C-alpha cells in the first residue's frame, strides 16, 4: 500500500446470511481484495436505513456499500427489498446535499458468491478512489 495515495475508507453494511457469509467465504478461499472495506454486520440489509447510511458519511466514510441477499433469497423474505428502496430513495438526497450518489452502492451478494464480494470491493474501491475523499473526510476539507 502506497502511503501517499488516497486510501478510501468504505463502510460495508452486510446482512448476516448472504453478504457477510460471502465476505467470510472470500477470506476462506484466500481471495484477495483491497483492505479499504470495513464490514458491519446486520441481521438483514433491511435493518440499514437512511440514518445509518448518513451517519457513516458524517463519520468520514468515503463510500458506503449496502449488501444483501439476492431478491427471492432473503432470509427474511423481503427485507432486502426494503434496503433497495431506501438506497434508491436516498441517492437524490445525497446529490442534493453535494455528495456524489456513486458513493452509495447497493449490491446483491449470495452466500456462495465469495468472488463477487471480492470483485465488488475491488471495483467500488476504485470508484471511490476516482471520486476522491468523501464529503466529511478530513483530507477533503484541508486538514
Amino acid at each position, binding site marked *: 500500500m502506497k502511503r501517499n495515495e488516497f486510501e478510501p*475508507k468504505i463502510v460495508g453494511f452486510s446482512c448476516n446470511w448472504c453478504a*457477510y*457469509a460471502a465476505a467470510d467465504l472470500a477470506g476462506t478461499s484466500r481471495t484477495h481484495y483491497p483492505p479499504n472495506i*470495513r464490514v458491519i454486520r446486520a441481521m438483514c440489509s*433491511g435493518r440499514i436505513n437512511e440514518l445509518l447510511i448518513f451517519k457513516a458519511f458524517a463519520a468520514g466514510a468515503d463510500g458506503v456499500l449496502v449488501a444483501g441477499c439476492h431478491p427471492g*433469497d432473503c432470509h427474511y423474505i423481503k*427485507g432486502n427489498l*426494503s434496503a433497495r428502496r431506501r438506497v434508491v430513495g436516498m441517492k437524490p438526497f445525497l446529490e442534493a446535499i453535494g455528495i456524489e450518489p456513486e458513493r452509495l452502492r447497493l449490491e446483491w451478494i449470495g452466500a456462495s458468491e465469495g468472488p463477487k464480494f471480492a470483485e465488488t470491493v475491488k471495483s467500488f474501491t476504485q470508484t471511490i478512489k476516482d471520486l476522491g475523499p468523501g464529503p466529511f473526510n478530513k483530507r477533503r476539507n484541508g486538514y
Partner: protein
Amino acid sequence: MEEVKIGVYVCHCGVNIAATVDVEKVAKYAGTLPGVVLSRDYVFMCSDPGQDLIRKDIKEYNLNRVIVASCSPRLHELTFRRVCESAGLNRYLFEMANIREQCSWTSEDKEANTEKAKALVDAAVRRVHYQEALEVKEAPYNPNTLVVGGGIAGIQAALEIANSEHRLYLVEREPSIGGHMIQLDKTFPTLDCSQCILTPKMSEAGSHPYIELLAYSEVEEVSGYVGNFKAKIRKKARYVDEDKCTGCGVCMQKCPYKTDSEFELGLAKRKAAYIPFPQAVPNVATIDPDICIYIKSEGKKCGACIKFCDAGAIDFSQQDRIIEIEVGSIILATGFDLMDPKRIPQYGYGKYDNVLTGLEFERIVSPTGPTGGKIQLKDGHEPESVAIIHCVGSRDKNYHEYCSRVCCMYALKQANYIKEELPNTDVYQLYIDMRSFGDGYEEFYERLSNEGVNFVRGKVAQVTDQAISDEGKGKLIVVAEDTLLGRMLRIPVDMVILCNALEPQADAGGVASRFTVNQKATGFFLERHPKLDPVATPTEGVFVAGCCQSPKDIPDTVAQASAAAARILAMISKGRITLEAAVSTIDEEKCSGCKICLGLCPFSAISFDEEKEICRINEALCKGCGICAGACPSAAITARQFTNEEIVAEVEGVLT
C-alpha cells in the same frame, strides 16, 4: 450505570491471523481504548486454555464486557458466548471482531491488515459500551417432522425419526417413493441388487405406524420457524381411492391408452391408469389426466377401469386436496436431475439409437426393465463392443465444473454387467481421471482392470456414424485422444453409454425460496458449513440430505440422512427451543401508529392495538431481523443487539 470493564482478546489462530496481522500491536492498541481494562493476545482463543483464560479474567478483573478478535462470528460466536455464560456473564455482553476471514486472509499487506484489524477492534470496543444483557427465553418444540422427497435419503431419514415414535410426514411428488435408487439394477462396489436393499425400506416407510406417507403430493407453502413450522401440502388427485385400491393392476391391463413410462425413461410404455413399477409404495394405481380419455371426454368415452375394478376404487370425482400440517423441523431430500445429454450434440444422444445414458442402461440391465435384463441394441442384437464415456457435462467448463462423484464407479459397475453377461464383448472406458475414493472402491477398480476392460484416458471429442475405414462401417465411431499415448483414436463400437452429470432438480430454485434456503453457485442447496455442518442450512430447523445438497453416492447419502435425523431427534428429545433474545421492541411513547412496520414484518409478529392506536411486537414470533426498526419513521422501534447507538458506534469505530 455500572462502569464498563472490557476484556479484549486478540487471537493468533496459529499463524492464520498472526502471519499477516501484527496481533501484539492490535492488542496493545486495544488496551488504550476507553473502557478496556485488559487486553491480551493468545495463540488459539477457541482452545480450552484460551477459553479458560477468558473465564479466569472475567472473575479476576470483574469484566462485564468481552471482545474476542479472531475468526468469523458465524464460526465461533456461540463458543465464546457460552464461555462468557459459564463465567456468569450474559451472552449478549460479548462481541467478536472478525480479523481472520475478513482481514488476515484477504490481503498479504501486513501493515494494512493491522490497521484494519485495529479499526475492527475499535468498532467492537465502542459497540459493547451500548450492549445490554438480554434474557434468553424458551418455547416448546413441535415433535412432528416433515421430510420432503422419498428417495433413499428421505426414506432413511423418515425411518430413523419415526422409529422414535414421533409423527413423520414423508412427502413425495411422484406416485411412488423410491427415487433414483429404485431405478438402478445393482449398487457399487458390492454389486448387491439395488431393489433388494431398497424395497424393504420402502415398504417399512409405507406401513410405519408413525409415518404418514403423502405420495403424489407437493409442498406448496411453508411458514413459521424452527419448532413451529406450518406447511400446506397439495395432495394431487389420483382418481383412485387409495384406501380401496388393492394394487391388483386390472385397471392397467384394461386401460387402452398408452404413453412413455417415466420410470423406464421412455424405453417402455405405460398406460393412462398405471402403477409406475411393480414394487411401488404405496402400491396403488394412478390415472394420468393428461391422456385419460374418460377425463378428457368428461366421462363420455371409455371408463374401462371403472367397469373392471372389483374394489370400486376408481373415483373420477376426486380433486386435489390441501393438507395443512404443523412440524418442528424439515428435511429437504429432493434429490437430483440428470443433465440432458442433448445439450452436448457432438455425442449424438437422441440422434443415434444406441447412444444411451447411464440410467437408461441401468433399466436395460434390470430384470424388470424393458428388455427383461437382456443387454441388447435397439434392433435386438447383442453389442460386440461398448464405449462408456465419463464426465459427460461434469468437470467441463461449458456445463458443470464440478465432479458428479458417482460416474467413475457406476461406469465400472456397468462394465462389469456387460462382462458378466457378454464376456466376449469389448468394453472401453473413456475417462479423464479415475476417481475411486470410497471404501472398497479402489479394490473394485483394480478388479475390473483385470477383467479385460479397456481403459482409455482421454476426453471424447465426438460420437459419429461417419466411418473412414471398413472396420467402422455401420458402427458408432468414438473419436478421442488417448492422452497417455498422445494419439488420436477412432474406436468403432455398437453401443455408447454416456455418464451424464448429476445436476440440481429443474425446480430447485423454487424449492429453495419456498423453504428459505440458499443455492450454491452449482444450484445445489447450501449447507450451513461445508465441513462442520454439512447437514443443516442457514435456516434454523431446515436440514438437507442427499443429492439436493451436492452429488453423492448412496453410502454418503444414507450417512447424511441419518445425521439430519439425529439432529432433529436431539431437538425432539429436548422438547424446547431457545428463542432469539435479540428481538425488536416498540417504545409506546414514540409510536405514532402509522403501521408501516406491520406490513414489513416477515413473521407477522407485529399487531396493531386498536385501543391505544400503537403497534406491538410479539417477542415469541420476532426473529430480530430489524427490518421494522429500519423502517420506523419515528425511531420508536429498537432492534436489540443492533440498535442505532450500537451500529453508529461501530461505524465510528471502523472509521477511526
